[in-house]
Each structure stands twice: as structure tokens, then as C-alpha cells.
């Protein structure tokens, strides 16, 4: 979880974002059991009606919560709560923020789809109940919930759910003899955020003798843009169970592999590598085992090269592609999780806690795509410790970028005059074609002051409301101003600074930003469509300063005025824009470089 919140602790009601050094940044009361970090940098909690209401009839743990609540996250992010008229199961969230979960109301079961930013219900998809109808001598009609696995979110961003169906009709010709007809099957539903459903049938049978519907046990992405569904099948005679793993590839083609009863995939790695609860590593493309983990170790993570990480009594080790034991370290962590580029967990041995949350640096190429690892929790009881889709760690919309524009001019104006006339007033923005700037009092003069940008084009204003930034650093003696975006209206999430300083050939005016798209698909898409504009607005700003200062002569390369992106990964740009590094931009924003950038990104705290 971003920021190291210890959300996996059972029944914990306080979330503590922590730094790598173990410093607890804050104590955040949770409205329920913290379940997962969400797409927008906040947390989702399941609110229990009472302890221990969960049931596990079909393999999935169900009916644990009666409400779902969003809390914490970056300043300005919305909190919301969805109260169910019945009970609900654990949620899954897509990259656009859409949340899918099962809701139980009365005898019915449906998939509820929420807008993760607001908590508003966008759709409900009712699932067909199992039906048993008796006619003739006995005349009854019963319905009960279908068995399901999921929902999950696939690599394409859609929600998926495996669901069984059963319609059983029994006709008593006499009170002691009957004939029976059954239609049973299992399908995978694909669900859009608007509630549109498409169905892939995995099994469908019409029986006149005894038969049973498949019981979905697990549904998860295969790591190759397809899906894996594991289910239990029973054919006559019904006491023989067969387990099958069905792979639905990206083109929709299905292939079945018979697997051992009780098989569970705990981790999915890159390229369709599955790490099983039987300790085997399986190639999902061929269905063949690759190597096996010694039985006293438990999976914790997959590496990008196909290696696996496992733990045993507080020891964490890497196992190579043929199962050979590589690096091993005794960390004395209970249930270590990958965090901060290493491992974090509660100090202890077995189930005995000996210390607090601790992190160890142990960098590796984390490659887990899906994590459903379980841990022992009391005698014979397992509890989930991994939680599904790991791609939230690497969502592109959470990747920050840097951009930078600057001019160095030869002028008789002083740096102070330029700072006062152009930086504090944003005068150059108004002169360009992009936006108008409104500042109370026409100048920025203190931390906390807000600046409003209104797009000049009426057409764009139709879609984008005026947005604001807030001054977070204002140091006239250093001629530096830094702001942060006010979300959620601002299309960008991040920081920008402006600085004026004497340099080798005159005066340099620079601005640099460290930001990412604000939450939401529109902002995410817009960030890249508008990429040229993000440096363009400050190019025009610099051009205005250059033209407006009498006799100013440009002494820096034009490319600097045009703007550069991501110089840390672009050595050619770094050579002409040495101040455009992330380190320098964040130093100018905070005054000193933040010690822990992931925590800074989450909390906006420079400490």
C-alpha cells in the first residue's frame, strides 16, 4: 500500500502512513477495516456491522461488510461512504477508479459498480439466482444466491466475475417417484463501468440425470491480458470432484487443464508465471510446472525475471529460475510485504510480535502482477495477506514527471525587479493564449495565497473549470515562489516553482514542475494530450518577459525557453538544463530536498 499504511493488519482501525525510517507521519482513524489503497491515493475501508459476520460458503469470503468508505489520501481528495441495504464483499478497483463488488440483499446477489472518486453508484448488475422448482405431488419454488468468484479487474480495465447458474426442475409424477431436469453452467461476465455486460460461457450442460453446477474457486488475470478461472466440477456420480483451470486468452480462446483439488494460485508474475499454493511454479502458456519451492517456505512476491521470493519464520529469500536458493536474509518480520523497494512488516517470529512496523532495504525487480497469498491465522484458518491486483503500484497516472522552462537574459533590470514584476504577478501568463490569472491583490505575497487560472478559450472552459494553485513557499530574499495544485478541480496533481537569480551571463528566470495527472480518466488522458501546452504556457510566459523588459538580450538556448521534460531520464536535455532534475525541482519547492519522495508525493509534506 502506498505510503506504508499497515492496512493488512486485521481489525486495525487506525492507519499509520510511515516513512522508510519508521517515522509515523500521522494517525488516521479508519471508518472500518482498511482494505486497500485506491486509484486516487486514498484508502478504502470495509465497515463491519458486527465482528465475524463473514461466511465462506463457496470459497470466496462473503458478507463481511455493510458499508464501504473512502478516506485518507492527498489533501483535497473526497471522502465518501456507500451504505448497503444488505451486506457486501471485498471490492476490486479499475485503473479509472471504478469499484466493483458483490452486494447481498435478501435472497439476491448483484454486482454494484461505483464511481471511485465520488462513491456514486453507476450501475447494478443483478445475478440470476439458483432456482429449484418442484411440481406434481410436491409443489415448491426456491431461489438462492449463485456461487461466484470475483469480481476482479482485468488487464483491460474491465471488471470480471465468474458466476455459476442452475435451474433445477423436479416433477413428482407420484409422491414417491420423480423425474429431474437441470440446466447448469458457469460463465465469466465482463462488466463495464456503466454496467454493460458481456458473457463468456465456460460450461453449460443440460442434464436429465444427476449433475451439479461448477463451483468457481478463483478468477484472476493470467498476466498476459487473459484470465484464469479455477473451478470445481462434479459429474455423475456426484461424489467425484474434478478441478479444472480454464485459461481465456486475450483473443477469447479457451483451454482447460485438469488440476489437483484445492489448487490455488497465490501469485501471478510477468509473462504468465503462476506461483501455486502447492509450492509449484507453473507456466500458464504451456500448463507445465517449471520449478517447486521447498514446502516450508511461503510465497511473498514474484520478480520480473521469473524468480520468486518466499519467507520462512521471518527469513526472506530469493529463489532462482530452477528453484535454487539465492539471497536469504533473516529479517524477523511477520508476513513481510514489498514496500519502499525492500521489505516491511511487523517484527516478530511466527505469530508472536516482538516489535513494531519495520522496513528493510533489499531492492529487487518487483514483478508481482497479482497477489492472493494467504497466511495461517489460528488453527486451520487462513487469512488473506496479499490483495489482488498489484498494478496499482505502477499505474502510469501515478508516475510523476518533471518539466522545466528557463531563460537567461542580459538586462539592466535587477533580479528583484523581475521577480516582483513578473513572478509575483504571473503577468506573462495573461499575455499568452493559454490562460488568464487572477490573484487577490494582483501579486503573490504570502504562503497560503491562491492563484486562479482560467482557460482563455471559451470552448475549453466549457469542459475545464477555473483551477487553483496555492503558494507553499514564498521567499522574496531568494526570489523563489512555489505552489501546489488544489485538487480535485486542477487537472494536474503536483508542484511548481519559479525562481529568479543572477547567473553567469545575466539573470535567469526559471520554472520547474514535478507533477502527474490528477485523478480521473479525463485528467489522465488530458495530461498527455496537453503535454505540449504544459511547457507552452511557460514558454509564452518567458517570451513575454523577454519582450517586455527593455533591451533584454536572450543568452540561453531557445530549447530551454521551449521547455524540457523528464531530464533525469534524458541525458541530452540534462546537459542543457542541469536545474531541471527532480532533485533540484523538489529542493526549490521545499527549500530542502524531501527525504522520502514517495511519502512526499502522498502527503505533500516536505518534512
Amino acid at each position, binding site marked *: 500500500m502506498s505510503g506504508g499504511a499497515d492496512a493488512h493488519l486485521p481489525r486495525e482501525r487506525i492507519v499509520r502512513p510511515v516513512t522508510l525510517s519508521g517515522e509515523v507521519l500521522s494517525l488516521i482513524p479508519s471508518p472500518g477495516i482498511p482494505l486497500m489503497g485506491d486509484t486516487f491515493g486514498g484508502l478504502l475501508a470495509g465497515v463491519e456491522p458486527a465482528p465475524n459476520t463473514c461466511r465462506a460458503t463457496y470459497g470466496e469470503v462473503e458478507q463481511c461488510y455493510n458499508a464501504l468508505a473512502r478516506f485518507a489520501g492527498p489533501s483535497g481528495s473526497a471522502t465518501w461512504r456507500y451504505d448497503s441495504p444488505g451486506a457486501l464483499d471485498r471490492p476490486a478497483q479499475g485503473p479509472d477508479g471504478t469499484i466493483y463488488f458483490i452486494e447481498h440483499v435478501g435472497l439476491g446477489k448483484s454486482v454494484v459498480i461505483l464511481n471511485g472518486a465520488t462513491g456514486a453508484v453507476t450501475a447494478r448488475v443483478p445475478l440470476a439466482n439458483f432456482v429449484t422448482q418442484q411440481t406434481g405431488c410436491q409443489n415448491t419454488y426456491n431461489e438462492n444466491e449463485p456461487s461466484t468468484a470475483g469480481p476482479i479487474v482485468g488487464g483491460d480495465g474491465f471488471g470480471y466475475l465468474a458466476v455459476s447458474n442452475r435451474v433445477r426442475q423436479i416433477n413428482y409424477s407420484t409422491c414417491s417417484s420423480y423425474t429431474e431436469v437441470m440446466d447448469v453452467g458457469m460463465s465469466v461476465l465482463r462488466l463495464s463501468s456503466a454496467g454493460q455486460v458481456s458473457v463468456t460461457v465456460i460450461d453449460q450442460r443440460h442434464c436429465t440425470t444427476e449433475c451439479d453446477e461448477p463451483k468457481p474457486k478463483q478468477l484472476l488475470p493470467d498476466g498476459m491480458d487473459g484470465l484464469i478461472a479455477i473451478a470445481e466440477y462434479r459429474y455423475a456420480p456426484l461424489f467425484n470432484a474434478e478441478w479444472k483451470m480454464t485459461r481465456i486468452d486475450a483473443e477469447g480462446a479457451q483451454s482447460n487443464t485438469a488440476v489437483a483439488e484445492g489448487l490455488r494460485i497465490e501469485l501471478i508474475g510477468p509473462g504468465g508465471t503462476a506461483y501455486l499454493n502447492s509450492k509449484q511454479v507453473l507456466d500458464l502458456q504451456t500448463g507445465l510446472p517449471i520449478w517447486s519451492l521447498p514446502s516450508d517456505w511461503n510465497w511473498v512476491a514474484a520478480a520480473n525475471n521469473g524468480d520468486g521470493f518466499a519467507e520462512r519464520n521471518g527469513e526472506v529469500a530469493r529463489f532462482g529460475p530452477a528453484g535454487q536458493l539465492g539471497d536469504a536474509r533473516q529479517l524477523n518480520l511477520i508476513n513481510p510485504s514489498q514496500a519502499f523497494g525492500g521489505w516491511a512488516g511487523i517484527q516478530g517470529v511466527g505469530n508472536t510480535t516482538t516489535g513494531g512496523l519495520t522496513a528493510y532495504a533489499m531492492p529487487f525487480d518487483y514483478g508481482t502482477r497479482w497477489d492472493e497469498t494467504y497466511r495461517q491465522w489460528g488453527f486451520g484458518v487462513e487469512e488473506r495477506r496479499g490483495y489482488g491486483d498489484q498494478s496499482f503500484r505502477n499505474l502510469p497516472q501515478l508516475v510523476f514527471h518533471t518539466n522545466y522552462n528557463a531563460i537567461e537574459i542580459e538586462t539592466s533590470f535587477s533580479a528583484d525587479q523581475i521577480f*516582483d*514584476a513578473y513572478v509575483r504577478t504571473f503577468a506573462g501568463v495573461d499575455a499568452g493564449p493559454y490562460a*488568464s490569472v487572477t490573484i487577490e491583490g494582483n*501579486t503573490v505575497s504570502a504562503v497560503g495565497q491562491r492563484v486562479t487560472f482560467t482557460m*482563455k478559450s471559451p470552448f475549453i472552459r466549457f469542459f475545464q473549470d477555473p483551477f487553483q494553485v496555492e503558494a507553499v513557499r514564498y521567499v522574496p530574499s531568494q526570489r523563489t515562489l512555489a505552489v501546489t495544485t488544489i485538487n480535485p478541480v486542477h487537472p494536474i496533481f503536483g508542484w511548481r516553482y519559479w525562481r529568479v537569480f543572477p547567473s553567469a551571463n545575466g539573470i535567469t528566470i526559471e520554472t520547474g514542475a514535478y507533477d502527474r495527472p490528477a485523478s480521473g480518466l479525463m485528467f489522465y488522458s488530458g495530461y498527455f494530450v496537453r503535454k*505540449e*501546452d504544459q511547457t507552452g504556457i511557460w514558454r509564452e510566459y518567458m517570451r513575454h518577459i523577454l519582450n517586455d523588459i527593455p533591451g533584454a538580450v536572450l543568452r540561453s538556448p531557445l530549447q530551454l525557453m521551449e521547455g524540457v521534460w523528464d531530464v533525469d531520464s534524458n541525458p541530452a536535455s540534462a546537459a542543457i538544463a542541469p536545474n531541471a532534475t527532480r532533485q533540484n525541482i523538489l529542493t526549490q519547492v521545499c527549500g530542502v530536498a524531501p527525504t522520502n519522495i514517495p511519502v512526499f508525493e502522498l502527503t505533500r509534506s516536505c518534512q
Partner: protein
Amino acid sequence: MKPTVILIGIVIFAIAAAILMPAHYVEEHETITQVLWNDHEAVVFSGVRRDGWSGTYAGLAVEMLRGFFGAIPRYDRNMQWVVVGHITPTGVRTHIQHATPFFHVQPFEGALFRVGDPSLKWDGDGFVPVTAAEQDRLQGRTRASTPDYSNVEGWSSKMNLLNNEQLRSETSLNLGGVQVLVIADRSADRIRKTVTVQFGDGKNVEIVKLNEAPRLVSANEYESLMKAQ
């Protein structure tokens, strides 16, 4: 050939022709508006830029799609000028300073200057070159670098008249005993912007009147509007 096929062909041809037809549009925007005054006269400087885009209706659709994501159109031409309104107790004279973005004038020795090479001096009707002696003295002056100021070298300033949080901004001036009100007004949707001078006798004189809505124009009109100044 069936009539349906012919009809479909005509419709496809019409759509293709429509999306390949030339399209031109322009937008005009106020950039920065400032009023400066002393005890007997005031001057309003209002920067205006006109941006133009030319292409086909298909290209226009692409620009509109980009606009949906917040990207500004990829204008192919732009023009800038400054409207200068000289306000005296007897009336207003308006003058256009062509082919220039908004500029910050500097008060000095009771007059207003565009400092540069060469520097220019406001003479009430327009900007005229300064003398060599004035140029020398200008170099050593104390500059005003804040947007709003009071009585610097005899002049006061109020900046961003049309970019305040308030839709309407009024600046009350006493010019040689005559009460004058400079009213900057914009509509809530920012489409319409005006700067009007109201004299004590009720007379109103409009200095700036802009409609910032984008408008489609003909090819000839586009060339006429966007021709180099």
C-alpha cells in the same frame, strides 16, 4: 444501380466533402489591462491578441477533441495590439498601438515611457522617440516593478482591471476637478469584456469592447483579419 446505393453514395460524398471543406476561425482575447493616472489625465492600456486557426472541418474536429481534453488549438497565426485610451477632463481619445503585445509603461519625470532601444514617450496622442538627454536620465531612474502603485513619479497604477475576482471593477479618478469613473466589466462566462469611462455629466465612452467567443469566418475574412500589420 439501385437508388439506395446511389443515395448512400451521395451521402458519403457529401460527408467527405464537408469534412474536407476549408474551415477558418479566430478568437480574440484581452491579455492585460492597466489604468495609470495623475491629477489631470489618465491612460488605459489594454492588450489584445487575436489567434487564428485555418484547416479543414476534419482538422477542426480534431482540435475540438483536443479541447475536450483541455488542450488549446494549435493556432497558426496570431496578432497582438494595445488599445490606448487617453482620458482627460474633456473626453477620451483612443489610439491603437499596432503589432505589439501588452507592455508595461514606466512613469518618469511626470511622463510615461516605453523604455527600450529606442525608448518612447507618451505624448498624449501616441509614443514618440525620447531625446538623448531623456534616454540618459531614464537609464538611471528608479523603476516601479509592482503592478499597483500610488504616486510614483506623479503617476498611480491599477493593473489587471479585467482579471479580478470581481466581474466589475471601478476606478474613481479626479482629473483636474472633474470626476471620472473607469469601469472594467466582464461577463461571468468571460466572453464579453468592456472598459468604459463614465463622466460626471453621465456621458459614457467605451474604450474596449471585446467578444471573446471563437467565430468561424470565411477564407477572405480570415486573411483580412490575420494579415500582417
